[in-house]
């Protein structure tokens, strides 16, 4: 399992990694980061092969892979965005 990290504050939400992942293992967040972008998240860290195709495609160097050998937890930086759009939606119902 690769130690893959997506820096949510670097991510600009372009989704290019999503299309690139052969495992379909990346999705876009429902919350926004500080710059107002929905950002990429790994769906299932166990499922990631560490092929780095996502990294190859990311225009913002938001995805890094620390080491393929060691296993570890995915560290998605917490977005400092306050409300998810889902929450907002709810309020409106």
């Amino acid at each position, binding site marked *: 399992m690769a130690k893959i990290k997506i820096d949510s504050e670097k991510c600009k939400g372009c989704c290019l990694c999503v299309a690139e992942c052969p495992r379909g293992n990346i999705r876009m967040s429902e919350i926004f980061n500080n*710059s*107002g972008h929905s950002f990429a998240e790994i769906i299932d860290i166990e499922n990631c092969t560490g092929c780095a195709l996502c990294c190859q495609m990311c225009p913002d160097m938001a995805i890094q892979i620390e080491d393929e050998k060691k296993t570890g937890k995915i560290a998605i930086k917490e977005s400092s965005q*306050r*409300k998810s*759009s889902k929450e*907002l*939606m709810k*309020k*409106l119902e």
Partner: protein
Amino acid sequence: MLNKHTKIIVAGFGGQGVVLAGNILARSAVMEDKHVTGMVSYGAEMRGGTANSTVIISDSKIASPFVVTPDVAIILNQPSLDRFEPLIVKNGLAVINTSLVSQSGSRDDIERVNIEASDIANSLGNKRTANIVILGAFIKKTNLLKPESVISAIEELFSSKKPALVEVNIKAFNAGLDGVK
């Protein structure tokens, strides 16, 4: 400086439609035969970052088109509040998109209108109309321009380029009007 004109600033992310909002205000004012000037600034950034659009509406001739200390600030996101709130004139007005602004401002010598413009826009099915929602709130609060003028301006500006969007934007405007008691 001399308060004969109403100076308005609309500020937000690039992409939130601040320029369009400014244009709609300017166009509406022209329809009411007022004097008006509009200006756009992309800040220091070329891409991304904040953008703002300033409009001066007056019954008399306008000299300087610059807005340094706005009477009204229409604020679409947090960084814009941080930047422009301090510049609002005493007893001025801030219209704030509270969907994207959490920290309330620091001034206690201005008036405030809060509206969850982005949320309302989302609920209308087009999140890009938050700029129009907030315009509605502004108009309702100030009565600076007639709602009909704004609606005509929306019709005029959209119908040429994106006629499909006329309806939802008018809805958004009305939602804004209704959003303020």
